[in-house]
């Protein structure tokens, strides 16, 4: 079955340190991968996506993600965390045989401590 996993419910990082939020997927074809961020009582904001091409994708607010086909991963990264990055992060994937529906990870709560 096609699925997305975010193995960490919560990630704690000190301000100024690099951060990584993990995402892995299980797929029977080529995936299209997305990251969204959600601040409290707000909708989801699109950060970045991987469709094809360069495995390193750059997105909004200084975030980037690396697509690794052999490890079936799409981890979200940022070189230097800000307190304002504290939020809920969702990884989502769409497969070639599904032209609209996103399969969502469970979400990872990112806490950046001053």
């Amino acid at each position: 079955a096609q699925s997305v996993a975010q193995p960490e419910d919560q990630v704690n990082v000190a301000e100024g340190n690099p951060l990584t939020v993990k995402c892995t997927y299980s797929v029977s074809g080529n995936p299209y991968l997305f990251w969204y961020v959600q601040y409290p009582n707000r909708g989801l904001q699109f950060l970045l996506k991987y469709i094809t091409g360069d495995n390193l994708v750059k997105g909004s607010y200084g975030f980037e993600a690396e697509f690794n086909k052999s490890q079936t991963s799409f981890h979200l990264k940022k070189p230097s965390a800000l307190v304002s990055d504290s939020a809920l992060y969702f990884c989502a994937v769409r497969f070639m045989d599904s032209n609209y529906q996103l399969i969502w990870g469970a979400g990872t709560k990112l806490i950046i401590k001053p």
Partner: protein
Amino acid sequence: DAMVIQNPRYQVTQFGKPVTLSCSQTLNHNVMYWYQQKSSQAPKLLFHYYDKDFNNEADTPDNFQSRRPNTSFCFLDIRSPGLGDAAMYLCATSSGGGTTDTQYFGPGTRLTVL
């Protein structure tokens, strides 16, 4: 700026009293989606419209209905809200529903059922 707008941001209703949530978009996108999100969980797709074509997810309760009178507006009707329907309701849009499409979300409506 082009955007997805949801009204109201907060809605309180009584058990069994019908309620309508509103979504509008200035992106001129063909596809509009309604999601339900509970307690910081992953959003759950209820249904979507591709233009006027309505697509209901198999597990969406009959209590939930939707209308899309024109390209810009989409409504979510909950005919007889139960306590279990208390949630954040998210509207999203995408340009054409293709595999590489990005979904853009509104700020959400938080529904409370008393």
